[in-house]
């Protein structure tokens, strides 16, 4: 059983516009396509796994009509739900994709409702209960208000104590905290800040330096998405660059691509696959997903096809490993 934790779920609303009018007399932009679905990083991973028929449980805090819509839609994808309810309304996150713009989507994410202390306590009880059923726990996303920055670190510690392997995908202060506990895989979210642990990520060498800094603690692997088409995996002794070699790659919807990556990785790891192969499969899942308008690719034959387009190069690091 795979457990996913999304403390700050969201309802994702994605708009495709021909042009985004930000200045001038008329500022109305009309979407020629729109898409909405349950979201938040862990929930996306759960949906991905549910579509593959993999038993998984989604946890987190939900509220109001949006919370109910999320719960229903996640369940319809074959996911077991175990959410904690709070006051207010679960957030809605908006992404705007501009036609013919190759740059990243414009994303506006709400903060989310605060979590009352008593519900947080109940969450911990449920979390420990769910760990007894899990082999892997995917912990990802932002934190809602009123939740301490070290919660992910504490969750990793509890999971390790229960013999559950963890994959953490997050940014901000909670990332600094979780580094101390050492998950199996740590994927820093660099959408908001490209400086991780005081290291500005400007090139491949800086990514490797940052990765090595994280691995000094107990983390086994660091994974960094370098745009949509390149990932860097840094392991205890070796590091690799995974690159998509595809000239006709047409990105239609980048939202959820990183979660398809994590979904593919945990799916393969739980199936007994080696780390590098699992990451390759995850990357194929991400590439297949971003070429669809719908978030997260449903067609697994496309994922298998994309694996053929991914090359793996071992990276040379000073004092570590060798160049292949």
């Amino acid at each position: 059983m795979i457990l996913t934790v999304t403390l700050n779920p969201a309802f994702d609303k994605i708009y495709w516009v021909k042009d985004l009018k930000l200045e001038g007399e008329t500022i109305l932009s009309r979407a020629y396509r729109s898409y909405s679905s349950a979201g938040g990083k862990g929930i996306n991973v759960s949906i991905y796994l549910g579509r593959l028929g993999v038993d998984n449980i989604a946890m987190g805090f939900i509220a109001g009509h949006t919370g109910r819509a999320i719960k229903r839609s996640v369940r319809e994808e074959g996911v077991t739900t175990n959410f904690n309810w709070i006051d207010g309304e679960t957030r809605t996150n908006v992404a705007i994709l501009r036609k013919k713009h190759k740059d990243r989507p414009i994303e506006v994410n709400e903060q989310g409702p605060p979590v009352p202390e008593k519900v947080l306590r109940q969450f911990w009880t449920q979390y420990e209960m769910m760990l007894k059923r899990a082999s892997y726990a995917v912990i990802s996303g932002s934190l809602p208000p009123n939740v301490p920055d070290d919660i992910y670190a504490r969750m990793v510690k509890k999971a390790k104590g229960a013999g559950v392997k963890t994959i953490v995908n997050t940014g901000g202060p909670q990332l600094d905290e979780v580094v101390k506990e050492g998950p199996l895989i740590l994927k820093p979210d660099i959408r908001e800040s490209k400086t991780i642990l005081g290291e500005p990520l400007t090139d491949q060498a800086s990514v490797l330096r940052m990765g090595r800094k994280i691995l000094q603690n107990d983390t086994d692997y660091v994974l960094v998405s370098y745009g949509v088409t390149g990932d860097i995996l840094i392991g205890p002794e070796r590091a690799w660059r995974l690159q998509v070699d595809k000239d006709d790659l047409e990105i239609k919807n980048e939202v959820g691509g990183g979660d398809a990556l994590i979904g593919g990785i945990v799916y393969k790891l739980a199936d007994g696959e080696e780390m590098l192969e699992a990451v390759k499969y995850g990357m194929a899942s991400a590439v297949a997903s971003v070429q669809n308008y719908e978030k997260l690719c449903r067609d697994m034959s496309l994922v298998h096809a994309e694996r053929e387009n991914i090359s793996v190069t071992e990276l040379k690091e000073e004092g570590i490993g060798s160049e292949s």
Partner: protein
Amino acid sequence: MKVKDIMTRDLSSVCEEDTIKDLIYLLEKSELPGVPVVDQEGRVVGFISERDVIASALPDYFEMLRTAFYIPDINQLSKELEEIASDPISKHMVEDVVSVSEEEEDLHVADLIIRNDLNRVPVVDDQGMLSGIVRRIDLLGALL
């Protein structure tokens, strides 16, 4: 059809030591009429619904008279509720809980629901751990 084909895979539940106030908060927010009660391991040890809370807060003679006419005013009910608000759920839950396994047939669940006048039946695995719930509407939906 088997239970696993029609069940709702939701693990919403409360622990025995949670309070009635916690339960009311959960039922109000989630709009669920009742939830299974689990122990620290996640095993189902009871069930509690809004009906059970009302029954606990009402005077004993209510069950016999089946009318609210003899309750002096709503404040009395409020006072009774306040009195049990901090009670552990275990004090008011139904302990003799009816549950089914995922492999059981839908007809068996339908029979249990009708005979026991239930709205929801917890689904448990072979160790008694909660794995979901079968609602009356799940059965109706499967039958249509």
